[in-house]
């Protein structure tokens, strides 16, 4: 290469050397990132096999199909829920563990542990927690196992999860009065939960409340559980960087713990919170494994990433799949802009 460049006129040498180093990277980026992205946008205007141009029809479908609208709703619930809860739990746990006199490392590594488990593993763990078996069977799910063992039935006998007692008799939960197991990841509303059973029609807000998609929220918690440790580590590092003089000054001036947290710690962590929020938002938009392993999108729990795969692999519709991909891509743009603005203002100050 060097020799080749030497043949060129002297004044081009510098530029050519630069191109020699950057060229391959730009070529590879173009081939594997830019080209597929443009191709996907192009395909989203075509029909299922990519043969005929159909304009915006795939996007019209994206915002009118019932299951697609539910998918978008779920994605919004996940975005708001996961980002808020991860930041909240991360902050609280990070702040409290920083205050611990002993056992900080132990406490933090326990909270961080889910981060070391693959998303598929975590999903499998939670699938067992929410697991349901039809009534006479022993409940192997954690929640249902505890649930059916509570209380007494109408005859005054203790309920139990098919527990065999020492005298050989069995405590079951099939009689009236014992709690019934619930298929948690199948519940699309609250009507099967105790004290909601008899609410079917009411005013608008009551209906909205009863139709709360409990299964989506329960699956969302898997991601919260996984990423709280990550947020905690980042926040606790940032908290340690807060100069002790300032907090001490606050204490001397008589500020309460809450006041110190709200007026000193939070302002100091503003940038960190934004970083975590950005990272979490992008992660949630990409979230795929949890839904894929637990419900595979059934029972109105689908997310955009799984929907994208389904449209491509199950319904063999390239156009719609590409449209969903573009929607995911567009949703990331505001966050990128937000980060650019922040970077610029930081560079200025």
């Amino acid at each position, binding site marked *: 290469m060097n020799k080749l460049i030497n043949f060129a006129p002297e004044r081009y040498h510098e530029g050519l050397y630069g191109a020699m180093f950057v060229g391959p990277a730009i070529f590879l980026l173009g081939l594997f990132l830019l080209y597929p992205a443009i191709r996907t946008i192009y395909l989203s205007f075509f029909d299922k096999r990519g043969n005929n141009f159909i304009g915006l029809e795939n996007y019209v479908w994206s915002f009118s199909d019932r299951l697609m609208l539910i998918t978008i709703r779920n994605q919004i619930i996940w975005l708001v829920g996961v980002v808020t809860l991860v930041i909240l739990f991360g902050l609280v746990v990070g702040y409290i563990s920083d205050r611990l006199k002993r056992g900080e490392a132990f406490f933090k590594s326990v909270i961080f542990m889910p981060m070391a488990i693959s998303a598929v593993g975590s999903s499998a763990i939670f699938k067992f927690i929410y697991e349901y078996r039809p009534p006479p*069977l022993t409940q192997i799910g954690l929640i249902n196992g505890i649930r059916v063992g509570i209380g007494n039935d109408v005859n005054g006998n203790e309920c139990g999860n098919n527990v065999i007692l020492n005298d050989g008799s069995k405590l079951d939960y*099939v009689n009236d009065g014992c709690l019934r197991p*619930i298929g948690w990841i199948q519940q699309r509303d609250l009507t099967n939960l105790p004290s909601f059973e008899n609410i079917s029609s009411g005013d608008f807000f009551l209906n909205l409340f009863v139709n709360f998609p409990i299964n989506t929220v329960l699956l969302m918690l898997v991601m919260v559980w996984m990423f709280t440790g990550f947020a905690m580590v980042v926040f606790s590092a940032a908290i340690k960087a807060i100069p002790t003089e300032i907090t001490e000054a606050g204490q001397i001036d008589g500020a309460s713990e809450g006041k110190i947290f709200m007026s000193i710690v939070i302002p100091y962590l503003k940038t960190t919170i934004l970083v975590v929020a950005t990272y979490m938002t992008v992660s949630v938009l990409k979230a795929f494994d949890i839904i894929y392993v637990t419900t595979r999108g059934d029972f109105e729990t689908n997310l955009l990433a799984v929907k994208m795969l389904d449209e491509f692999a199950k319904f063999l519709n390239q156009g719609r799949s590409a449209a969903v991909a573009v929607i995911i891509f567009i949703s990331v743009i505001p966050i990128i802009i937000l980060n650019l603005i922040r970077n610029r203002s930081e560079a200025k100050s």
Partner: protein
Amino acid sequence: MRKSIFGLSLLALALIAAACGGGSLEGEEVLVFGAPATDGPDGKAIQEVFDDFTEETGIIATYVGSENFESEVQVQLESGDVPDIIYWPQPGGVVDAAERGLLTPLTDLGIDLDEYEARYSPYLVSLGTVDGVAYGGANAVNLKSIVWYQPAEFEKRGYEIPETWDEMIALADQIVAEGMNPFCFGMYSNGATGWLATDWMEDVMLRTGGGTTTYDQWVNHEIPFNDPAVKLAAEYLSQIMHTPDYVVGGVDAIVSTAFGSAQDPMFEKDANGNPGCFMHRQASFIVGYWPEAAQPGAGTETTVFPFPVIDPSLPKAALGGGDMFAATNDREATAALFQYLLLDDEAWTPVATNRNGHGSTRITANVNFDTSLYELEITRVLGATINAALSENAFRFDASDLMPVEVGQGTFWSEMTELATNGPGYIDTALSNIENSWP
């Protein structure tokens, strides 16, 4: 591995052609490729059939199977380096390859189509036919129209096996009156929740209205999805799902129970020795999902009766699936093997009698085959049911597999799930939603 066998066969072929100069087919080789693994029970059983053929004719037939059949066969078809005969797990593969002009019509292989139809029913022949030319040979089929039950539990309580829908409902009411639940029903399946309900619908469709005629019209969308005939089928299904106490665990259990553990309550006895349920409609593969202790009792302690008749004027129909094979050339040796597999009524004997203990339970679609030869009692029942349906041309493939994917794997499944949750009042909405989604 396969390549080398193929290359070897070509070499052998050339040598033999040179040596004999035509005439006898002895020593010629035929390579067959399919999905069941070469070393698996089904692959070994297929090879047993071929060995019989080799003994009779001297033509050496070799079976090779691959777990990645679908992708490998595509590569072979694209490259033109193809085996002589290909076994597809479903007729769709034959139709696809025939449309691309890669297969040999059956008439070129010396197959008498009338004989073929007489043995395998016009319906199966039609599944491998493209533009009026038959390409595919029907082979093994499986049966979905069966209900699992435990004979001992039935005898103890004096229950009779229901032969009609009304008898089944009467039996169910009696079981409910005695404080128990008649049915097991679970349709949760990751990404495919609802297929069990579509199977029920299909079984009812085959037994009501115009029977197989209505069924074929329904599959091909010649009648709308919200046609009264389809609505009737949905109402029959809803009767099972929504009558109080019919299904163990109620509507919640139908939706929340994974199809694999749906039958488990049947094996769970309560304090009075009563099982959780008495009947479970599911295809024969469900045995693999049973609790380990129950599996050896398949066919004896827990066995099947055919899905009950609804309209007695209709022929006894059966719902199922099956594979299909086709030839890629019209060499004499290929044609000889093809004829043997398709038209020899005893060709299936080594599979049925489980010769050399390979453990294959495949069932032939040839109605002339003597079903009493099957080694296991349960296979005999399945084989006889399939035979009866085929001889009246009333065997049909799973409708949801034949419908466009948007319906067959999309709305049909999801709306059946909605129907289970929302109750009989939702039938009209469900069917119109499916109708509207038909592409």
